[in-house]
C-alpha cells in the first residue's frame, strides 16, 4: 500500500460506486448483477484485509487518517481514520457483505437488492471510519434508507409494518443525536472559538459543564441505545429481523447493531467521559436486564428466526456490559464480541434462511429430525450455534469471558447476574437445536435437502473464522488492546474514574 492511496476513502467509495454501476445495468441478467455486486464488495474486502496487514499493531491512535475540507463554513471535513476498535468491524463489514449479496436466494428484482446492499455497505463503512461528527451522522442516517428498502421490498409478510417501525424508531434516536452533535460543536466553538466537527479535536479540547455533558451524552445515547438495541427500546428488532430477507437479517444483526455499540465507544465514552462514568450503572443495569430478558424471551419463541433475533438482544447486552464496565479486559472483550456476534449470528441467520427456503416455515414445531437427513447442515448449524452459546474453543467464548472478567473487577454484581445469561443462552439454543435437528424426520422434513455446494461455500469462511478466532484470538486482541488502553486513559484523564489495578491488565501475553 503506498502512502498516497486513500484506502479508507476507497472503502467507502467503492461500494457506493458499485451501487451506482449496478443501478445502471439492465435488470434482466441476475448472474451478471450478482457478479458485479460481489466484485465490488470483494474489492472492499480485499482493501479491508490489506488494511489489517498494514495496520501498525502497537499504535493505539488513529491510522490512515485522510482529511479534506468539505463544508468550510461549518468546519466540516471529510475525515476518516481507523484504530483498533474500528479495524475489525471494518473487516467484518468486508466479510459479511459479499456473502449477503451472493448467499441468499433473491426472489425478485435482483438488481435493486444488489444495489441497495452495496449502498448499505458504503454507509456502514462510513459510520465505522468517520472521525467527523457530521460525516458520521450522514452515514448513520444513510444506512437507514437501504435497509428500509431491503426489508420493505424483499421481506416477508409483515414487512411494511416492520420496516416502518425500524425506520421511525431509529430516526427518533438520530433526531436527538443531531441536536446533541450541534450542541457539542457550538458549545465548543463558544468556549474555544474554533468551529469544528472533528471528533478528536472536540474530545481533547472541550470543557463542558458536567450537567450539560450528561444531557448531551443522553442525546447521543438515545440514538445508540435504539440501534444496539438496549432494553427497553429493543422492540423494533424482533420485527425487523423476522420480516427482513435473509441477507437483510444477516447485515442487520451482523453489522448494523454494531453501529450502536461502536457509537458508545467512539462517541459516548470518548466525547463525554465523565457523563459516561456517572451514568455507567444505568447502562450496566439495562445491559444486564437485556441479557436476562432477551434470553428468557428467546426461550419462549416458537419461530426460529425470532429466537435468533432475541438472542441478539441478549448478546448485545454483554457488549454493553463490557463497554460500561470500563475495564481494559471488558472493553477488549466487548470489541471482540462485536466481531464474534457478527460472525455467529450472521451465520445463524444464513442457516435459518436456508431452512426457510427448503421448508417455507420457520416454526420450530414443524421442523424435526433434520440431523438424520442432512448431517452436514446439522453439523454446520451446531458449530455456529455453539459459538453463539459461548463454548470454549469457539469465538463466542473468548469475548464473553473477557467481558465477564473485566466487569467482575469493576462492577462485580452486574457481572454475577450477567453470567446467568450464559447459562440461559445454552438453554434456549440447545433446546432449539434439539427440537429442530434431533428425533425422527417426518413428513416434509424427511426430504430435507442436504447443504448444496454453494451453501457450503457461503458458510465455510464464517465457520473458519469462528474456529480461528476461538482458538487463536491473540493477533486480533493485540490490535484492539492499544486503542482500548488509549480510550481508557482518555476517560481517566477527563473524569474522576480510575480503573482498578486488577482490571488494567490486558489479554496480551
Amino acid at each position, binding site marked *: 500500500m503506498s502512502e498516497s492511496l486513500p484506502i479508507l476513502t476507497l472503502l467507502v467509495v467503492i461500494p457506493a460506486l458499485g451501487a451506482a454501476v449496478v443501478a445502471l445495468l439492465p435488470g434482466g441478467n441476475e448472474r451478471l448483477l450478482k457478479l458485479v455486486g460481489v466484485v465490488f464488495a470483494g474489492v472492499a474486502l480485499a482493501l479491508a484485509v490489506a488494511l489489517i496487514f498494514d495496520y501498525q499493531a502497537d499504535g493505539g491512535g488513529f491510522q490512515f487518517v485522510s482529511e479534506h475540507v468539505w*463544508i468550510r*463554513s461549518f468546519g466540516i471535513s471529510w475525515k476518516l481514520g481507523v484504530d483498533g476498535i474500528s479495524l475489525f468491524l471494518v473487516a467484518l463489514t468486508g466479510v459479511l457483505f459479499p456473502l449477503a449479496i451472493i448467499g441468499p436466494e433473491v426472489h425478485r428484482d435482483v438488481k435493486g437488492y444488489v444495489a441497495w446492499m452495496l449502498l448499505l455497505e458504503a454507509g456502514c463503512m462510513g459510520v465505522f471510519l468517520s472521525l467527523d461528527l457530521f460525516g458520521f*451522522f450522514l452515514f448513520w442516517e444513510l444506512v437507514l434508507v437501504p435497509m428500509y428498502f431491503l426489508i420493505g421490498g424483499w421481506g416477508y409478510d409483515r414487512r*411494511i409494518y416492520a420496516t*416502518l417501525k425500524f425506520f421511525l424508531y431509529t*430516526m427518533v434516536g438520530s*433526531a436527538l443525536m*443531531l441536536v446533541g452533535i*450541534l450542541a457539542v460543536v457550538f458549545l465548543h466553538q463558544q468556549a474555544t472559538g474554533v468551529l469544528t466537527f472533528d471528533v478528536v479535536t472536540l474530545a481533547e479540547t472541550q470543557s463542558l459543564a458536567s450537567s450539560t455533558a450528561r444531557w448531551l451524552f443522553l442525546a447521543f445515547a438515545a440514538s445508540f441505545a435504539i440501534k444496539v438495541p438496549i432494553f427497553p427500546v429493543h422492540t423494533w428488532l424482533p420485527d425487523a429481523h423476522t420480516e427482513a430477507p435473509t441477507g437483510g437479517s444477516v447485515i442487520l444483526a451482523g453489522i448494523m447493531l454494531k453501529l450502536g455499540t461502536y457509537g458508545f465507544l467512539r462517541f459516548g465514552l470518548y466525547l463525554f467521559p465523565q457523563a459516561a462514568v456517572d451514568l455507567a450503572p444505568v447502562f450496566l443495569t439495562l445491559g444486564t436486564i437485556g441479557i436476562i430478558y432477551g434470553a428468557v424471551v428467546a426461550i419462549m419463541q416458537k419461530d426460529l428466526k425470532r429466537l435468533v433475533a432475541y438472542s441478539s438482544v441478549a448478546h448485545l447486552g454483554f457488549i454493553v456490559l463490557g463497554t460500561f464496565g470500563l475495564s481494559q479486559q471488558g472493553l477488549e472483550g466487548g470489541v471482540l464480541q462485536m466481531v464474534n456476534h457478527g460472525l455467529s449470528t450472521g451465520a445463524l441467520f444464513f442457516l435459518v434462511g436456508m431452512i426457510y427456503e427448503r421448508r417455507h416455515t420457520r416454526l420450530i414445531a414443524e421442523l424435526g429430525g433434520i440431523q438424520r437427513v442432512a448431517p452436514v447442515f446439522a453439523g454446520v448449524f451446531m458449530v455456529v450455534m455453539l459459538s453463539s452459546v459461548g463454548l470454549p474453543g469457539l469465538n463466542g467464548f473468548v469475548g464473553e469471558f473477557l467481558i465477564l472478567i473485566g466487569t467482575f473487577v469493576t462492577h462485580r454484581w452486574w457481572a454475577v447476574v450477567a453470567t446467568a445469561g450464559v447459562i440461559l443462552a445454552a438453554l434456549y439454543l440447545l433446546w432449539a437445536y434439539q427440537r429442530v435437528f434431533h428425533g425422527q424426520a417426518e413428513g416434509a422434513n424427511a426430504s430435507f435437502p442436504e447443504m448444496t455446494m454453494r451453501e457450503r461455500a457461503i458458510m465455510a469462511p464464517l465457520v473458519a473464522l469462528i474456529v480461528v478466532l476461538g482458538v487463536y484470538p491473540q493477533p486480533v486482541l493485540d490490535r484492539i488492546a492499544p486503542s482500548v488502553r488509549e480510550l481508557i486513559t482518555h476517560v481517566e484523564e477527563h473524569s474522576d474514574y480510575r480503573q482498578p489495578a486488577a482490571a488494567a491488565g490486558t489479554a496480551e501475553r
Partner: protein
Amino acid sequence: MMAQLEPINLPDVEWSLLAPEMILIGGAMALLVAGTFRRDRTMAAAACIFTVAVAVAAMVASWGIWADVGGGAGGARLAIADAVVVDGFAIFFTVVICTAVALGALLAHGYLKQERLEASSFYVLVMLSASGGVLMAKANDLILIFLGLEILSIALYVLAGYHQRREQSREAAIKYFVLGSFSSAFFLYGVALTYGATGSTNLGFIAEFLATQTVTGGVLLGGFAFLLVGLGFKVAAVPFHMWTPDVYQGSPTPVTGFMAAAAKAAGFAALLRIFYSAFGTEQLDWQPIVWALSVLSMVVGSVLAVVQTDVKRMLAYSSISHAGYVLIGLQAANDRGIAGSLFYLLAYTFLIVGSFATVAIVARKGDDRTGLDAYRGLARDRPGLAFAFTVFLLAQAGVPFTSGFLAKFYVISAAVEARSYAIAVIAMLASVVAAFFYLRLIVVMYMAEDQAMAGVGPETSAAAAATGDGDGTGTGDGGVATAVVTRVEIPVAAAIAIGLCLAFTVGAGLLPQPVIDFARHATLLRL
C-alpha cells in the same frame, strides 16, 4: 390657485438596479401582446421557451447587480428615494423566484397542452406574479411590500382558477382570493399601526427610530402581530394555514408547484427583512411569537399530513411544516439562522417543484388522479420518475446527501447556536413524524404491487371510498385511480424540470459549499 401648487418631487429611478423586475414585466407585456396574435401549438411552445428565457435573463441581470453590490459583501444600494433596497438578500430571492418561474414554466407546458388550456396568458400571469415577489424582496418600505404582495397575489388568484372547467380549480381560486384579501387587509392594518407607532413606513426610518427611542404601549406590538398574520398567511404558517390544503389541491398542479415555491419565498423575504432587519431591536418582543408559529407549523403540518390520502393535500401539509422549519432561522435571529432560512428556501424550491412535477404527471389528463392509489406500482411502470420522486421525498424528510438534509441541518444548527434547544428537538421529532408519510408514499410506489400490504392497503382503499376527506374538494379520485392504469406519459419539458430539480437536490447535498456561500453572502442590509 393652480399656480401655487408645488411641483411634485419625483425621485430618481435607478433603472439598472430594477432590471430583473423590468425584464419580468417587460417579458410579460411582450408575451401578452404576442399571445393575441397567435394561439396555436407552436405559440404555446414558444411561450414556454420565452418564459424560461425571461427568467434566466432576470437571473443573469441580478447576477450583474450581485457584483455591483459588492458580491453580497454588505454593499447594499438604496434606490428610488430609499423605497427599494438592493442587497445580496434581495438578489438571492430574485434568483429563487426566477428559478421557480423557469421550472414552473417547464412544468406547465405539458399540462396546458394536455388540458387544452390557452398557454400564453398563463405564462404572462406567472411572470407578473414573479415580478411582485421580486419587488417584495427588494422593498424597503412597507407600502412597497404591500404593493408587491398584491401584484404577486392577484396573479396567483387567477392562476389558481386557471383551469376554469374544473370545479375544484374555481373553488380554489375563490377560497384563495377571499382569504388572501382578508390577510392583505391584516397586513395593511399592521402597516398602519406600525406607522402610527413609529411615524414612517420606511424600514430604514423605522429601524433608526426603534434604535433611538423607547416605544411603549401596544400600538407597535399590534403592528407586529398584524404584519405577522398577513405574511404568515402567505408563507402558510399555522394557524394561518387553513387555505393551503384546499388551494394546493384544487389549483392546477403546475400552479401549485409555482405557488408553493414563489409565494412562500416572497412571503419569507418580506418577513425576514421586516422582522430581522427593521424590527431587529425589538427581537425579544417578536421572538416568542415566531417560536410558537414555528413549532405549531412543524407539528400541525407534519401530524395532519400523516392522515392525508391525497398526495397534493399531503404535500400541502408538508409545505406548512416546511414553513415552520424556515421560521426556525428567523427565530434564532442570528446570521446563521438567516442564511439557513435562505438555504432552506432555495433547496425547498427545487424539492417542491420537482414533487409537484411528479404529481402533475401522475395525475394524468383531467388532473385528478392524486390519491395514494394512483402511485401504486409507479416504480415498475416508470422507474426513473419513481426514483426522482423518491429522492424528492427523502430529501424533504431530511435524509443525508440531499439538499433537504443540509437545509434542516442549517436551520437547526442556527437554533442550537442560539441555544434554543427546545425548538431544535421539536423540529427533529417533527421530522420523524414527517418521515412517516413520505415513506408511506414510497411504500406505495415500490412495495405495493400486491395487496399484501400491512398498513397501507386498507387505508388507501378506504380513502378512495371516502373521496377527499369530507371538505368537498375531492371528487372520486379513488374511483378513477382503481381503473385500469395506463402507463403515464412524461412530457419532455417536465422531464427537464424534474432532471434539474434532481440535479440540484443531489448536487447541493454532496457539495453544498457554493450554495452555502451564496446564502451566507446574501447579506441582509442591517438597518
